[in-house]
């Protein structure tokens, strides 16, 4: 597993997000109210909207363009929409957020 250092947890607002410029395209890192951190490709499966700019609630982000709701843990669009935002692994080590790029993997609907 190739972990990348991203930022301190405090540098992401609760219910907020940051954008990571990764070689394969932007990745959105989300922080929930309970301080869990998730990472998804910053592209909505619908029309490519930047999910990092969406509103976060619970373990869900609403895409800023057309309000598709994406489950942060799996990357799967919530019903009735069908689609998948590619997800990456995250962990918090000593207050710092780390990311491991996930080569292609299907999203597992939660």
């Amino acid at each position: 597993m190739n972990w990348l250092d991203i930022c301190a947890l405090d540098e992401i607002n609760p219910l907020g997000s940051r954008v990571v410029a990764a070689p394969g395209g932007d990745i959105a890192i989300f922080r929930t109210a309970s301080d869990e951190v998730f990472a998804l490709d910053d592209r909505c499966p619908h029309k490519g909207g930047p999910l990092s700019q969406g509103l976060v609630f619970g373990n869900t982000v609403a895409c800023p363009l057309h309000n598709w709701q994406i489950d942060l843990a799996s990357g799967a669009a919530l019903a009735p929409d069908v689609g998948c935002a590619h997800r990456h692994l995250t962990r918090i080590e000593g207050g710092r957020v780390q990311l491991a790029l996930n080569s292609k993997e299907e999203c597992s609907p939660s």
Partner: protein
Amino acid sequence: MQKLKLVMVGNGMAGVRTLEELLKLTPDLYDITVFGAEPHPNYNRILLSPVLAGEQTFEEIVLNDLDWYAQNGIELKLGRKVVDIDRRNRVVIADDGSRAEYDRLLLATGSNPFILPVPGHKLDGVIGYRDIADTRMMMETAKVHRHAVVIGGGLLGLEAANGLKQRGMDVTVVHLGGWLLERQLDETAGRLLQTALEGRGIAFRLGGVTEELMDNGDGRVCAVRLKDGEVLAADLVVMAAGIRPNTELAEKAGIPCNRGILVSDTLQTFDPRVYAVGECANHRGTAYGLVAPLFEQAKVCANHLAQFGIGIYKGSVTSTKLKVTGIDLFSAGDFLGGEGTETITLSDPIGGVYKKLVIKNEVLVGACLYGDTADGGWYFRQVREGANISEIRDHLMFGENAIGDVGHQGQNSTANMPDDMEVCGCNGVCKGTIVKAIQENGLFSVDDIKKHTKAASSCGSCTGLVEQILISTVGGAADVKPKSEKAICGCSDLNHGQVRKAIRDNHLTSISEAMQAMQWRTPNGCATCRPALNYYLISTWPGEAKDDPQSRFINERAHANIQKDGTYSVVPRILGGVTNAAELRRIADVADKYQVPMVKITGGQRIDLLGIRKEDLPKVWKDLDMPSGHAYGKSIRTVKTCVGQEFCRFGTQNSTQMGIDLERALSFMWSPHKVKLAVSGCPRNCAESGIKDVGIIGVDSGWELYIGGNGGIKTEAGEFFVKVKTAEEVMEYSLAFIELYRQEAFYLERTVHYMHRVGLEHIKKAVLHDEARRKELHRNLVFALSLQSDPWKQQIEQPALNRQYQRIDVRPLESV
């Protein structure tokens, strides 16, 4: 934790809907047992007529299949009739001897057809029309017999008659009343209906009194004898002379009943552990027989069963629609009228169109339509909302299309829309898809449609249209409510008005505090309620409530307008549309430096820089050195002006300066929705003041103020508000009105919709007739605005805010 036990007696639409609502609220509170006397799962009883007429099959009208019960852990006991309730030991006993204990009991026993107690009423071939067994029996009888008599010319009777006729029987309807559907139609419409049905070959005996059902000698009915001596051949007699709430079980258990099980506004019976919903319940003297009120009851009852304890059922306004293909009639509210009411009538007996509107105290209270019911849903909405119609009275009869132009918001009738016409532009959903989803899934509300089809779930501008499609598909069963009654979102049962009030009354100043106090069901709300809550908090408690950027849509969080490719547009403030060479030079330099793909003059007399990358936004703002124009928010937008007196040869007032002063005063103001103003220097109105939230027109003797105009989805001309003499008065009156709107409107409600909801008189009373109130409103807004400053500057200067614009580069971790 030991679960509570909930037993439901009756497995029909009202009861099962209550369970659905309950499971949504608290999926794990109860172990649920359901007793159903019929051997079927819950089906859509209002679609029995299409089954009888051969337009749908039974399978198509099942609402909850057996899997649904299993998935929700509900123990379903079909084909078992509950015969006794032992209230002391809290046990119900079924006819097969099986028992079930309960902590809460829900009675949803529905109703029975009223069988006229005439001689012969027990013969074979005499049935009511309530369930699928009756329907099947009618279908079987039609195969082998010829003559049918339907007793009762109400909705059910006519649907039965039509179905039997479709299946090839000779049908006569015997009806006691003077005209058909006398509870739904007035006499004129009733006659038109009769003519239409006679055209289909159905015969009628109005004023007919049934005296005897005659035996064929084998214990089967063979004829009906009327009081006037006439004898009608009948192999089948359908009694559709009304329904009686089924209270047998409740009465036996000693629960007070009086034409229905008596229930309170929380659907509780005399025994606090026992609830009742649906056709068996008598609420404030009415036992409803239509599905929409039953669903409203279900919602309230579920809320109390879930131990939330909020929600009160206050009775329903109902509307009806006859489900006979090809015959359009619609009625709602008090369509007969009476003392103190006025009536507007349109009657074209040859063309087969009849419309009657009943008005009381400037409010539409009832409507009866025959032949052309396209506007039925719209009239029904007017009746429910109780809006003042005095201003549209002369167009009212011609329906929604006659009121202004036709637009997206459901303002055009859906009946004539082709199936492949796109309804929801955001998600590409066509009318046919919506209709199919409604029919196949048994949907009754716009929320359900949103979930199944995605229509109206994004920008929401087609919600009205979707609502109309729903109404035209399921008629009076549609669960439609004005925004003032609807829950704010799925996270709470409170509506916008209640939320505002709670925030004010309990001095709530943060989102988490508000959610806790109002018992939000979700830990941090959703994308619908959080922006609304945030606005209500900051507008109610300026300076005290802290703005929460994470609860704002991206445009208001990034202070720029997101475009479809994820870039942003930047519009600096240009007061009154007046700029100068230095500003233009800086804008040009920015356009060069950041290679801005498009520079555009906006409709609001400003300059839009489109296609800016998010990480460049703070730099662009810094280089522009101009404040935010708030072109992205639910906020003040711009004050459009004409040249005015200074240069224009027609100008009567200095409109440009007035516009600049207003825009400066309102800078950085948040509001329920966007707010646009315009100031014109003479009645030629070059600044288009007539379609602005506040429009000002200079005249020789002063200024005229118009409010509630809108040039958006549906063009609305502003209403004349007041004429004043001085620029100071323009400022005071305009700001007072805007503050009233900020305090009272619902989130995402434009001034025009706010004005229609509360009435122009209400606004005039507060702002024009009450000087102290006006000055207070003006003062409040000035105070709230004194706390605001340029958001672009804040974003540049405060690191916590600035962070969102910085992208993070990846660094490999050294020790892996």
